[in-house]
């Protein structure tokens, strides 16, 4: 994150990748699958939101631990803004998934295990924001927030990666369903999907670095 704040080259990469994702995502040939039809292209837009969220939350927990080790409030600022951006990505992932589900699964919310788990994950991170907001002392806020962050992350991973896989899910890769699985994710999709994940994730980090730089400026101003 500190490297990302210092350097600029990756912002050009971000723009190039997202533009490539839009052009390729709309125009490249997509596999012909029943039910999904052209909506398979949502793979390049909906799924990267979740990847982005996970990378942002991972960054956040790293800076939470760094804060606990160093007691440097700048680490706390980085951790907090990464959570903010991660929540944004999570909400966008939920909403875009609901639009997609409405047209393929027949209803926006079908209590699919992955839907429920990601909603719970969102609530856990909302609680972190509320918890931080309710504490006035900067160091207390940072310390309690950081400890909560570690626990939230420890719950996030089983919620998203383990629990949904234990039961049948409408999501691909869990149970039997006619969506795309490892065999359907063909090379045409891969060609756009991997750059899409990187591009949207970097876009999230761009927003997060901007937000934290502004907050660090404010923080320094308060110290004067």
């Amino acid at each position, binding site marked *: 994150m500190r490297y990302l704040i210092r350097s600029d080259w990756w*912002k050009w990469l971000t723009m190039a990748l997202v*533009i490539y994702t*839009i052009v390729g995502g*709309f125009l490249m040939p997509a596999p012909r699958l029943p039910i999904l039809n052209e909506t398979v292209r949502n793979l390049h837009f909906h799924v990267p939101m979740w990847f982005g969220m996970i990378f942002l939350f991972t960054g956040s927990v790293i800076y939470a631990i760094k804060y606990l080790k160093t007691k440097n409030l700048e680490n706390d600022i980085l951790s907090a803004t990464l959570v903010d951006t991660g929540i944004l990505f999570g909400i966008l992932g939920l909403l875009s998934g609901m639009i997609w589900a409405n047209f393929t699964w027949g209803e926006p919310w079908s209590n699919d295990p992955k839907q429920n788990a990601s909603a719970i994950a969102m609530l856990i991170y909302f609680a972190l924001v509320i918890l931080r907001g309710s504490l006035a002392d900067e160091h207390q806020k940072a310390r309690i927030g950081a400890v909560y962050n570690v626990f939230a992350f420890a719950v996030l991973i089983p919620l998203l990666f383990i629990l949904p896989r234990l039961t049948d899910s409408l999501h691909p890769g869990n149970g039997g369903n006619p969506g795309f699985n490892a065999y359907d994710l063909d090379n045409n999709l891969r060609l756009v999907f991997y750059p899409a994940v990187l591009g949207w994730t970097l876009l999230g980090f761009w927003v997060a670095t901007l937000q934290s730089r502004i907050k660090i400026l404010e923080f320094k*101003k308060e110290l004067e």
Partner: protein
Amino acid sequence: MNIRKLQAFIFLTFTGLIANAQEIEMADDFRGEGKIYVVVAVVLLLIIGIFVQLMRIENKVKSLEKENEGSN
């Protein structure tokens, strides 16, 4: 994998193949007519607008950081 799952798997695979053999609706004509490019152009315009705005914020933050360094 128990027998039931295997049966379900085979069933789904075969129905999938049959469905593939029949035409699956895709936006072939739409793209054939070239109109999809209009959508791509619109989305590109929007995302580039967002990027321009991000770069403006970027520059603003940079100048503030410079100012801040100068004052310290």
